[in-house]
């Protein structure tokens, strides 16, 4: 170690320290004119009037990508809107054992209602059952438990519907075009939801005999993989008319590859509903013309449902006294005509 205190070492050390000082100033991610407002729409909830106080426990996975981050934001923002709601939110975790522990802590704290987005639906079924047996109703968000006994209400997105609506949108756009060629950039193939999205897409395309799906490659929901797989697809298919990309996050990479290849001879439809995708659709100067929603606002709705459960009410607009036991959200197609309406729900 003694040699390190040579003059060279000192110089290097000083350089390292100053570089470090400069760098730490660079971790900030707040734009100078920050307007951080991704969450929820402002539609009035079932019953905006303050009622019986409700404590809602919320347990989700680690927010390691934009959509999950938006889920947390939506839940928090929605809970803040109600003076009668206290939100107990856990540190998100992708580790099943850890998430079980967190939910058990919430059960022991005797929260009134639980909202759970499991890291793995099947693996967390038992703890859902435990909560229900302890008399705490569970709102199961998106990734579904093994048995309906483990939740009072399930609310989530429609992966099959995403594919279906994307397929129909493309089908209508390519109507009358003979021998139309379509390609698909799928998400992570290990996940069941990817299969469901592809199934929906294929089923929709069956309605349009003039369209043929000529290629499909699976990326990994990351920008990096989106760029890599899209670049290969573009090389493989010198001519095609439409592309459906399962996920807007990997779509950032896909759009980059399209730009790098200098291609603009087709229409692209995205998936999920990221802010960057909405902005591109609004500007309408590239291939991205629409995206199919998998709305993160479902977390806000889950808070509404949990509050209604805690207060023993139904939801407005429905005749029943109780909230439904299952709600599948619609995967709306967002294009230039309606993008303004959805802009506030876009996630980063």
């Amino acid at each position, binding site marked *: 170690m003694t040699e390190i205190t040579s003059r060279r070492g000192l110089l290097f050390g000083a350089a390292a320290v100053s570089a470090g000082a400069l760098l730490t100033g660079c971790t900030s991610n707040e734009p100078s004119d920050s307007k951080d407002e991704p969450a929820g729409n402002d539609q009035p909830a079932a019953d905006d009037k303050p009622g019986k106080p409700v404590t809602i426990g919320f347990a989700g996975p680690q927010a390691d990508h934009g959509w999950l981050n938006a889920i947390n934001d939506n839940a928090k923002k929605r809970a803040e809107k109600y003076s009668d709601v206290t939100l107990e939110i856990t540190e998100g975790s992708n580790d099943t054992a850890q998430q079980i522990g967190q939910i058990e802590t919430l059960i022991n704290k005797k929260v009134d209602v639980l909202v759970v987005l499991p890291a793995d639906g099947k693996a967390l079924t038992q703890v859902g059952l435990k909560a229900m047996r302890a008399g705490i109703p569970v709102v199961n968000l998106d990734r579904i438990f093994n048995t309906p006994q483990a939740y009072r209400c399930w609310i989530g997105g429609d992966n099959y519907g995403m594919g279906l609506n994307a397929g129909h949108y493309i089908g209508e756009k390519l109507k009358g075009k003979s021998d139309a060629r379509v390609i698909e950039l799928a998400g992570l193939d290990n996940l069941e939801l990817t299969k469901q999205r592809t199934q929906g897409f294929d089923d929709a395309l069956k309605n349009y005999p003039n369209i043929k799906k000529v290629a499909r490659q699976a990326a990994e929901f990351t920008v*990096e993989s989106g760029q890599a797989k899209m670049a290969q697809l573009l090389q493989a298919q010198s001519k095609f008319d439409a592309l459906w990309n399962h996920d807007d996050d990997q779509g950032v990479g896909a759009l980059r590859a399209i730009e790098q290849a200098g291609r603009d001879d087709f229409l692209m439809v995205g998936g999920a509903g990221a802010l960057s995708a909405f902005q591109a659709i609004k500007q309408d100067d590239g291939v991205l013309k629409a995206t199919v929603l998998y709305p993160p606002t479902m977390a806000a709705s889950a808070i509404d449902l949990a509050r209604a459960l805690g207060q023993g009410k139904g939801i407005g607009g429905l005749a029943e006294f109780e909230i439904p036991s299952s709600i599948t959200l619609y995967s709306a197609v967002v294009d230039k005509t309606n993008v303004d309406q959805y802009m506030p729900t876009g996630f980063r």
Partner: protein
Amino acid sequence: MTQPVSPPRDSITDKVPQDRPTAWRGLLARTDVRTLSLLGVLAVLVLIGGITKPDEFLDTRNLQLVLTQASVIGVVTVGMTFVIVSGGIDLSVGAIVALASVWATTVATQEYGFAGILFTAVVVGVGCGLVNGVLIAYGAMVPFIATLAMLASARGLALQITDGKTQIVTVPSVLDLGERDAYILGVPPLVLVFAVVTVIGWLVLNRTTFGRRTVAVGGNPEAARLAGIDVRRQRLYLYLLSGLCCGIAAFLLIVLSGSGQNTNGNLYELDAIAAAIIGGTLLTGGRGTITGSVLGVLIFTTITNIFALNNLQSDVQQIAKGAIIVAAVLVQRRTASTT
């Protein structure tokens, strides 16, 4: 598996240039059977690609594409090769690439433009390498453990910085570097960087004292110490070097994808190790070539490319990839032991 099956003259240690033959004969002698068999594998792949998809595969654009896709992981692999040759391992390369790429693409960093992004990516890479190196060389930690810890914390820090969000690059000069207009005589700048890193890596490993020390430390650390090599300092430098390569790779990835994301560099450690091993680098240290590692990377990228062009799905791709790794290593061992 870990036994050197080749005759000892293959190893770099024997190539200490005492009475070096003429340059050309030296090159031939150095192109050992391993490298030749790798070239053979690559030739077979090119043949398969050319037969199955002649128009799409045998195309300048496709060559540019394959080389571009290879450059990010290629630069990482060059650094990894040095570490493995010295008997170490760096499991944190993917995480360092992720951390460097997100740190370099924060809104605050982007305000400093091209230079700010490049500087941050490289310094973060080197910084992580420094931590690895100090822990391993002076903290006497096992490389596997130290870099595993770095893997976890760098990924965590990357997640903390991004908050799970995708950071889109808006600096035009950085984005332009990844466009076709930036190609120099048809060569993408990313590929150029990869080539330069490869050549420098080759020169350093084969033509410098630093390179010979690296091989010596990997071959027998105790003998190296007795021969007067400061083994600890050598190790520190090697992890610094790997970190530097990760920083450069992170910058290339930023240019390529136009963004920074905490999921970047996923499983790069495995890809880089696999490429190095296919390239004939001994996992136990003491032997390895930059040429082999780079060929290993090219083989992997070409396989991925051929699969994608033929529209094979991920399940088939993964199965075939595993089989090809085994086949390539077996072929190499055969050719190496029969000559």
